[in-house]
């Protein structure tokens, strides 16, 4: 497969590219040289473009079409117009999933960023064994979501998980991490923050490298204390990192799937159901593909709206600063 990937551009660009160099001298060839350059460009893009169009663009269009259809059972899909979308309006489980997704995002993102920044500030500079500490904090990033969720399942098991054993030892008995909806959500949130705090820390650490120590020294000479220096120097100067992380974290939390799917399956009831798991449930468990596709379109639209908003605010900020 990989071979056919290279073969395409090789066939088109080889001869064209080689002649391209020679045609720079004579003027009449200028236009055709530019044309050839254009073809070469598209040929280089070709393999990636074909894959993107086939497996992303076509499915998006497919999802839009499918969301206007009803596909119960094995019969032919039937056009139902906007019925799938109208159904969402009155679908309590959809609104609960939507609300859960928002709550999950609103809680996890600030936690991840605050903890990440705190750790970065503490770990910035030389510390004995710092490589070890940093490595350990970043390590969850390479652990698969499913494996992390599985570890969390074992830790949070109600009957005899370690978390409840420890809580039991200090007198808090039998916390219902699975049977209580709110606590189930808390367990997923804790796991998500655990998984992502390392990313936030290293991005902030990298951002802090750009903060000149002279600024701190100058502020200190002027009598600024640590808290003042943090607020007036560190925070503004890691602004770009904060913005970068905000976008990444919101997208990651809004699209959470693995953790919820493995840890709670959206339950109990729909109390931890998020848009991703709810769309999966409809598309592949209940097999109402039309409704599942419509839910997917909603996820897409919300993601795009958020992206546009952050992109615009970023633009405005670029212009004003």
């Amino acid at each position, binding site marked *: 497969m990989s071979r056919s990937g290279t073969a395409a*551009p090789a066939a088109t660009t080889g001869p*064209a590219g*080689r002649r391209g*160099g020679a045609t720079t001298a004579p003027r009449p060839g200028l236009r055709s040289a530019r044309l050839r350059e254009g*073809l*070469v*460009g598209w040929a280089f893009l070709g*393999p*990636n473009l074909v*894959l*993107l169009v*086939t*497996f*992303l663009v076509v*499915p*998006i*269009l*497919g*999802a839009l079409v499918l969301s206007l259809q009803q596909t119960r059972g094995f019969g032919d899909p039937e056009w139902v117009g906007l019925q799938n979308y109208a159904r969402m309006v009155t679908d309590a489980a959809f609104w609960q999933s939507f609300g859960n997704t928002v709550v999950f995002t609103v809680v996890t993102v600030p936690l991840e960023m605050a903890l990440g920044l705190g*750790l970065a500030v503490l770990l910035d*500079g*030389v*510390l004995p*064994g710092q490589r070890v500490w940093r*490595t*350990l904090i*970043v*390590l969850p990033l*390479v652990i*698969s*979501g*499913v*494996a992390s969720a*599985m*570890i969390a399942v074992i830790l949070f*098991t109600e009957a*005899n998980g370690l978390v409840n054993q*420890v809580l039991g030892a200090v007198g808090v008995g039998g916390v219902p991490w699975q049977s209580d909806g709110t606590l189930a959500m808390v367990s997923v949130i804790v796991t998500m923050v*655990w998984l992502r705090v*390392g*990313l936030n820390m290293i991005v902030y*650490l*990298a*951002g802090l*490298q750009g903060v000149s120590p002279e600024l701190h020294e100058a502020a200190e000479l002027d009598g600024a204390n640590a808290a003042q220096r943090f607020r007036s120097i560190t925070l503004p100067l890691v602004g*770009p*990192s904060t913005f*970068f*992380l905000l*976008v990444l974290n919101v*997208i990651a939390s809004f699209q959470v799937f693995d953790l919820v799917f493995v840890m709670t399956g959206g339950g109990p009831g729909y109390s931890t159901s998020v*848009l*991703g798991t709810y*769309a999966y449930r409809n598309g*592949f468990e209940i097999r109402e593909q039309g409704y599942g596709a419509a839910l*997917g379109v909603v*996820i*897409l639209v919300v993601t795009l709206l958020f992206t546009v908003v952050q992109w615009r605010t*970023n633009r405005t900020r*670029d212009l004003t600063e």
Partner: protein
Amino acid sequence: MTRPAAPATASGTPAGSSPAAQAPSGTARGADRLATGRAPRRGRPGQRFVVLRTAVAVVAALVVAFPLWWMLVVAFSPRGEVFGRGLRLVPSTVTLENFTRVLDRYPVAEWFGNSVVIGVFVTVLTVLVNLLAGYAFAHVRFVGRSFVFLTFLATLMIPVQAIMVAQFRLVTGLGIYGTYWSVILPSAATAFGVFLARQFMLGVPTELLEAARLDGAGHLRIFARIVLPLSGPLVAVLVLLTLLGSWNDFAWPLIALKDPDLFTLPIGLLYLKGQTTPDYNAIMAMAVLTVLPMVALFVAFQRFFVQGFVRSGVR
């Protein structure tokens, strides 16, 4: 190490205006310093309170690493021990019985092999097409370049949950449902590495490229003979991050693989959990086998991983 300097023009290009595609340039520069472990400048305010800060670092590291320790404890403990009465943070005896049991009862070796095959194909294909596209965006002038670039950028925002139903129907329609290809091809359909590639390749000195052009070299030759050999660190970052993404991928393989013989490790883990009485010791043993390759790669190539994480924010 021949790493071309980060181009100064980033903020003027479409790439510069999208933080999702790459970290702000200050962060990116910081990433390099962070990753290369160069000595920090003297006089940083953080040189004080070393004892206190080290203590916090140790506690934070222990808290974050504890779940991984717990995975090891459960995997190496005699069956059922950690779920019995009484708090126990280390195995009473270290045993391999959970590993032998899970390997005996389930096709874990096959699942491991499937993950390797899919991971290698996805990585080779993705990195190759991303490098080619990155070169085109960096060094070939053609009509519609900015537009296509923005389109590529936009595809990064598409979550798998949004299109999974339609993608499932597409893959079924193409007749590759339930084969390796149903995972490999959609996974390789990403512009994830294109932006890192373009950014890096913009840093290759234009004099080098001009000289090659004057010598009559075409783009393919310039790409293969000049740009690629200078792009070692870029290729390392792309290969490692793509492999990591494929190895840990869950939602799409869950949909695309129906035959248990073709499962990848994450899907296999879920399969074990789905048994009527889940054997958690065996599940953790398999989790250890699942995470070990990536942990090993991370420890060996931490510099590239960190650079990739900081610049791209992971997949």
